[in-house]
């Protein structure tokens, strides 16, 4: 029998919620361990091995020591998967990129003496692909379990996963939702990558853009919509801060 691919799950700066989504597969976790050998997964097991084929990396990269650790992971892994918004786009952790690292340190630790301690040596927050090449992305905050399954089975089958590059509106319309704009809310769905089954607007909460932007925030069409709904570029910039700080001008990048 062909050897099962060995999988290791790692976390950096994050809430571990996306890992929890994997652990939450419940009985399907038995299917998962049928098709892969999980050799390291701190959240659910004690064992650890550096011998793996697929590294699933959760979290944003904040410090030089994290970069070193990530590079080591990359060198061990044949395939590297970025898991969740912190890893795929930097996510919430990028909010702090509004300030310089030393300002942040001062704000948080005041006059405590942390100088020279590498645990407290921080850079600007980076997404995983700003440090090492990423093969596959599982977007979202948290990830969608079905998409996780799709990516894992695709890797196992040797196919490139089909991840949408169209906006959340497509899935939102399929779910027969009343448009958030119609309800007087400001939703990032029209410029955010789909794949989440429009879970937020379907549950009556506007999209926050956790799966990354697929359109630059400053385009003719966005301006048109902002104007029609009496919003400004400043509004959209502020809204993007939560998950997409510094990415308003990126558009789709992978």
């Amino acid at each position: 029998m062909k050897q099962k691919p060995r999988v290791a799950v790692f976390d950096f700066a994050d809430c571990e919620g996306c890992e929890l989504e994997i652990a939450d597969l419940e009985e399907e976790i038995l299917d998962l361990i049928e098709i892969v050998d999980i050799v390291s997964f701190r959240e659910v097991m004690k064992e650890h091995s550096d011998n793996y084929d697929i590294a699933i990396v959760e979290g944003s990269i904040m410090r030089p020591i994290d970069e070193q650790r990530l590079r080591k992971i990359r060198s061990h892994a044949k395939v590297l998967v970025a898991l969740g918004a912190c890893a795929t786009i930097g996510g919430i952790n990028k909010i702090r990129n509004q300030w310089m690292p030393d300002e942040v340190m001062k704000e948080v630790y005041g006059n405590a003496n942390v100088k020279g301690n590498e645990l407290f040596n921080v850079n600007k927050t980076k997404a995983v692909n700003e440090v090492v090449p990423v093969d596959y992305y599982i977007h979202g905050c948290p990830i969608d379990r079905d998409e996780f399954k799709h990516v894992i089975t695709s890797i196992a089958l040797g196919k490139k996963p089909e991840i949408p590059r169209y906006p959340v509106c497509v899935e939102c319309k399929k779910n027969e939702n009343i448009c958030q704009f119609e309800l007087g809310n400001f939703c990032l769905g029209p410029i955010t990558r789909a794949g989440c089954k429009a879970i937020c607007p379907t549950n009556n909460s506007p999209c926050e853009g956790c799966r990354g932007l697929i359109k630059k925030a400053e385009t003719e069409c966005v301006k048109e919509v902002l104007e029609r709904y009496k919003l400004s570029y400043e509004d959209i910039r502020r809204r993007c801060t939560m998950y997409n700080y510094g990415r308003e001008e990126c558009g789709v990048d992978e």
Partner: protein
Amino acid sequence: MKKIQSMSKKDFTSFVNTLIASKTYDVVGVKAKGERFVYDTLDTADDLRLDFDVTIIPPKKYFLPQYEQMMKFSLEKPFDVHPTFDDQPRVIIGVHPYDIIALQQSDAVYLDDQKDDFYKKRRQNTILIACDIQKVSERSFAASMKTNIVEDGFDLLVTNIGNTYTITIGTEKGKKLLEKYGKTKDATTEEIKKIKQVRDTLASKYKQKVKIDKKEWPEYLVANYQNAIWEEHADKCMECSSCTMVCPTCYCYDVRDLVSLNMKDGQRLRTWDGCMLKEFTKVGSGEVFRDDTKERYRHRFFRKGNYLPQRYGFVACVGCGRCGIACLPNIADPCDLMNELAHFGKEEETGRYFIKQKTTVVEKGIIHVPRSATIRKIQHLSDTDTFFELELDDKKPLGHDPGQFVEVSVFGIGEAPFGVSSPPTDTPLFEIMVRRIGNVTTKLIGMKPGDKVGIRGPLGTGFNMKSFEGKNLIFCSGGTGMVPMRSVINYVVDKKHRDKYKNITILYGAKRPKEIVFMPDVDNWKKVHDLQCEVTVDKCEPTECWGGCVGLVTTLFPKVRMDKFDSKNTIAIVIGPPVMYKFVIQCLKTMGITDDNIYVSLERRMKCGVGKCGHCQINGIYTCKEGPVFNYQQIKQLPEAFE
């Protein structure tokens, strides 16, 4: 004259409740969702809101669901595929006239000569209880489209005439349902008169009006294909395809294979797709055929107002106004767009972007379900190109014409179109060539003889070889264009057929020597005395072994032995990458070959292969149905063909 009954409102409520209680049907009706309305299963008649204006999405979701499983397959067995049909009997209560008309339109598409079995089953299992509109939706312009009332297409039609409902019997099926579950009496003359009054009063309440009669939509659109308004509006377009999602006459879909986490089984699923999305026309090689937002924006209106009218005779907009509500920058409403076009001219000749052609029904059985085939031979031609011999397991010949294609399924991965590279035979064997570009091709290349794949086809319109008899033939191919071309060439050079054709010239250009596909065939053709075969490569590194011509395929034209043939009696067949056509066709024209004697084969995203999913459209035609082989004289009129 249809039979009309009447029913008190109280009796109607108990009719609906009895239907629900019978548990025979999934009883669907219009329910409130916040300030808007949706179709949903009814638990009680109290939830039914026949006073609705318009639902968020149309009832098409019951016939072409947002996500529909088409088949289940096993990954453990070599070939184990089972189509999955929805057998649920259903009654839908509260379908407005415009949505009834929209359904009749999708019937024209989905129940045409190549019936979509999934759709058909759902349609047969459903009883439609239409209702006359009681409240006009603010964005609706149904009165202008004459879709605010309907004469047929329903099983029953409910009209609120004040204190009572009248029920117009549309079909025997509707009549039986009413007899079994409801209590009615014949409508009085007075009541029947009221129906017209109700309808007339309502028709006067439409604020949105289209200035151009729907008969003239094709004329205004054709005249304004190049108008600047497409770009002006497209600049504001979010490319979210909300307009197509909520549209009752948009029926394009995408197909995906999903595999369970146990890797033992999976499903093939179709889901709504939208022509406003950039990836809609993207093929395996990465090319996007409607790359510009302007082109996609224009395509949506042309499909509704020109292409489908050419094909089926109806304007595919029913004036429901849903797209106008859904569009954030407010550029999707056909009423606004047509009223803008009213300021410009119109043109009588409306068929310019369409080719009227009889297409053959090529696929029998359930059109979307592949039959099994076994890989017999695999030969790796180069790093990227692999040759496959396949055998249909039903042992029947494929029965294709040169130029036709097949859809090859690798379950779990997906399905992709391939030109057949072998000539027609009496055996179940046929050949394809696979170039590594995407998921399906990569997986195929890794497969072994004895492995199973799924085959649909032959599909599309190929070359009519009979019509070329008695003529000289020039074959001009570039790159993988040689794949389908080989099928044509080996057909005419076959001893059985060679006498029927006069002089044969083969011109073939590949990028690099190693990318020449079918070298053994090329060598054979070169050896044959009664034909001329010239090969060139675009580029050749000193390290590569190549003694032939270097240059684009057009550099071969001066070598053609002109003395051998009369250009008036010559057919040219051109197959190659999109950029090649313009230059090659110019060369052919210089030689005196007329446009009607030139044939081309075009590549597009042929997903369903049977003229349903919409991805392969070149203006008004389906590449998978009217093509991929086209007469140049006809296809050159379509601006999207060679852009």
